[in-house]
């Protein structure tokens, strides 16, 4: 008798718990779904600005896209005004900016990539030394230095002593801005290389430098390459330091000691001249496309050469 009562109570309690649980599960599921929805909406919001920017640039800039954009230098204000009056597209292109950007980026790459990659390797290999701790924090601080400040300093270091604005000064400022990114990305990719590879090389009798150069760097190559490409992307659109160092030029200049134009400098010039305003959009579009393309290449390389 007693026994059956207890059993009955047990069954009741069991049913009650089951009911409670199923309502909890439904509640949890609903909560999960709402959360997922909110996250999806918010993440799709982050995509909107890029598409709006692209749309705006395309809408306003497509008229000026033609071959002469890449083969001719920026037009004078007068030519542009005449074209505007006769309702024709503005003649000329941005060759002087394009060549200046390529020239300065190449020099900046030569200056910053060897130093950046070697420092990054050092930081990854000597994780705990005081010196690398100091280098690491200073690198982080360097990354936070406003670009205009870099420009001012390079103006004092290079432009004043050389008595001229120059492509060289511009590339120095770009190199300084690239350096911290390259150092940190190199360090991170070198750290991703499994330590067992180093041991394997050592166990085969290879010297330390051989192991670094022939085993670890090739294994991390994808990361090093991507990091450098992203650093290039980052400084490609830098304007402020170039205003104070490269200044700008109306013709194609390949002499590194002379003032030189660059794509972002041209955008700034076009902005300051109402006759050339139509070119702002096309030039910005091109700059954005360049940056996006390099970014996409970098992402694909990172995926393809990922360490397995």
């Amino acid at each position, binding site marked *: 008798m007693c026994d059956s009562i207890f059993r009955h109570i047990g069954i009741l309690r069991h049913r009650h718990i089951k009911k409670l649980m199923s309502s909890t599960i439904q509640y949890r599921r609903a909560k999960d779904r709402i959360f997922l929805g909110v996250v999806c909406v918010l993440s799709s919001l982050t995509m909107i600005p890029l598409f709006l920017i692209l749309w705006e640039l395309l809408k306003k800039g497509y008229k000026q896209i033609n071959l002469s954009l890449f083969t001719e230098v920026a037009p004078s204000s007068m030519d542009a005004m005449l074209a505007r009056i006769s309702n024709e597209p503005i003649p000329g292109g941005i060759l002087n900016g394009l060549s200046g950007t390529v020239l300065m980026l190449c020099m900046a790459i030569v200056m910053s990539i060897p130093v950046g990659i070697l420092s990054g390797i050092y930081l990854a290999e000597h994780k705990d030394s005081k010196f690398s701790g100091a280098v690491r924090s200073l690198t982080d601080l360097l990354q936070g230095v406003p670009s205009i400040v870099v420009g001012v300093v390079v103006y004092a270091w290079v432009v004043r002593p050389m008595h001229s604005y120059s492509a060289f000064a511009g590339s120095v400022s770009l190199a300084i801005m690239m350096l911290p990114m390259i150092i940190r990305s190199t360090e991170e990719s070198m750290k991703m290389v499994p330590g067992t590879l180093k041991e394997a090389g*050592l*166990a085969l*009798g290879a*010297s330390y430098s*051989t192991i670094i150069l022939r085993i670890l760097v090739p294994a991390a190559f994808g990361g090093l390459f991507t990091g450098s490409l992203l650093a290039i992307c980052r400084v490609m659109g830098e304007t402020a330091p170039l205003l104070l160092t490269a200044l700008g030029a109306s013709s194609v200049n390949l002499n590194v000691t002379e003032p030189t134009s660059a794509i972002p400098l041209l955008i700034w010039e076009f902005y300051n001249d109402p006759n050339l305003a139509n070119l702002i959009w096309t030039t910005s579009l091109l700059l954005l496309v360049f940056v996006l393309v390099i970014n996409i290449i970098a992402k694909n390389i990172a995926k393809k050469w990922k360490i*397995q």
Partner: protein
Amino acid sequence: MENTINTQVRADSESQLSPNSELLLQLKDVSVSYSPDKKAVQDVSADIFSHTVTAIMGPSGCGKSTLLRAINRMHELYPNIKTEGEILLKGENVLDMNPMKVRRMAGMVFQRPNPFPTMSIYDNVLAGYSLNNIKLNKQEKDEIVETTLRGVALWDEVKDSMTKKGSFLSGGQQQRLCIARALALKPELLLMDEPTSALDPISTNRIEELILDLKRQYTIVIVTHNMSQAARISDNSMFMYLGELVEYDSTKKMFTKPKEKRTEDYLTGAFG
């Protein structure tokens, strides 16, 4: 007291460990410390004879890998690790030799297969030569690759995919490739640090067969935490506990009539 134990071990070595072959590696009072007050390996002395498989076993943290890595001076990667005593390889103290030479005389295979991911299977086998800037002509290269890969029973499986990356192989194949990479340099001694612990039973079995086969040409010291593996493949066994070499004897004798209580307890599963 300690001296007597050491002499005893050595006396045993001469009488039973391998009467017919020559002495290849001699450990004399080897100690390894990670910090000044803590020794991971304490005064280990043992003689290892050529063409034998010597298993080092013991519970985790007993210093077996540490001892193995002292033999080819891998500890030099970490400046705070100190190795004392004498390790004589063919009569020469490895602690005084050029580390590069030591590592070429004593090849090493690691716990996890670690083929170089950027190199092809072919280049992985030859890595020991290329990384040491030893120039070989095409014919020599082909010959070394083929004989070594045949030696580790991998040739038939990979002969048509020589240019593929080492990471393309399965775990067991990768480990055999790593053994081939170590053997390509024709070392005197092959050190294996738990070479099967990351592998499935079938691959483990193949590696064990390979070890028995390689014994004819090489001398092998293998660290294992797997007692039955030690029983299956080794001629002699060392039992280490808390950094000490408790017992070193022929495997048969150790597994049937261990001299030390601690060995017996470990082998019967009382701890470990």
